């Protein structure tokens, strides 16, 4: 049983790269050191101490994600949308009517289980309500647009697993999913554009206090963060469900897991 040359090469590469990395580990600061250069730097200190004054949002991570680093989040949302489109472009094809396929789909229709259907009929509204709570409470507790959007998408995946992909596609069709994902990106970029039209920079939320009623520039940043997180949640929810629908049916959107 001779050893394949690719495995020898892989072992050599791993040993070289691993030893290089390990030799660099000696210069690292101790684990959990509050005075390491990354932790005691000016930027981290500024974010921790000034978030309550400048944005009035208790969750520092959400404030940095949606406000101070809003560009990163916007382009990440675009990346998710483009990944969904790429999966559609690679796999999507019209359903073929071969006899083996037809028999499979007909057999799948009777695979609906009573216990699963009843349980999920009770569970899915609660899951979606929890997801909306996670989106809305991103300012005060761990959460935000991404987490809530993924939980919403997972609720639709659960519906597809239990009731069959066809029944779920009747409620949340491919067209609706694509439309909602585009709407999410438009909400995010649109907020930035409105900020520019009102006189500030792109994604400079302070100038939004002119159109949002009863807010001062600091609260306008907090409210704009919520709007932007809702946009992110739309895109993430639609694309997560779309990825599952395309992958589990092999591109045909007919049968599936």
């Amino acid at each position: 049983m001779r050893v394949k040359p690719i495995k020898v090469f892989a072992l050599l590469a791993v040993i070289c790269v691993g030893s290089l990395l390990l030799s660099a580990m000696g210069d690292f600061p101790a684990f959990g050191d509050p005075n390491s250069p990354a932790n005691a730097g000016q930027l981290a200190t500024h974010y921790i101490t000034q978030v309550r004054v400048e944005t009035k949002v208790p969750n520092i991570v959400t404030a940095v994600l949606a406000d101070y680093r809003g560009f990163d989040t916007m382009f990440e949302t675009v990346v998710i949308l483009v990944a969904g489109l790429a999966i559609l472009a690679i796999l999507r094809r019209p359903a073929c009517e071969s006899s083996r396929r037809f028999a499979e789909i007909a057999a799948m229709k009777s695979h609906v289980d009573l216990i699963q259907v009843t349980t999920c009929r009770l569970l899915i509204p609660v899951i979606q309500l929890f997801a909306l709570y996670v989106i809305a409470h991103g300012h005060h507790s761990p959460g935000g647009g991404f987490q809530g959007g993924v939980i919403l998408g997972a609720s639709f995946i659960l519906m597809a697993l239990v009731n069959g992909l066809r029944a779920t596609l009747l409620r949340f069709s491919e067209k609706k999913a694509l439309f909602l994902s585009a709407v999410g990106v438009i909400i995010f970029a649109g907020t930035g554009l409105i900020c520019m039209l009102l006189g500030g920079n792109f994604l400079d939320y302070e100038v939004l206090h002119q159109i949002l009623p009863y807010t001062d520039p600091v609260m306008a940043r907090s409210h704009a963060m919520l709007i932007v997180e809702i946009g992110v949640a739309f895109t993430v929810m639609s694309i997560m469900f779309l990825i599952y629908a395309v992958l589990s049916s092999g591109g045909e959107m007919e049968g599936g897991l």
Partner: protein
Amino acid sequence: MILTFDTVALILLVITAIMALKIRDLLGASVVLGIYGFLMCLLWADMGAVDVAFTEAAVGAGVSTVILIATVYQTTRHSKD
């Protein structure tokens, strides 16, 4: 930052990573990858990164496992190595 918990979790992480690559049944490998994701989530919650732990639990251990199993369903279940 509980040190014994960190150590045990890191050792378990290495064991699950090696197992996910050694199991020939691809369905089992996907499930072990889900275990790997949950262990990561626990480690990050211990380090104080609760947002990252929440995202990894939802995305890495939830959606990622499901789409991997969906692909295994559409292709073959057993691998030769």
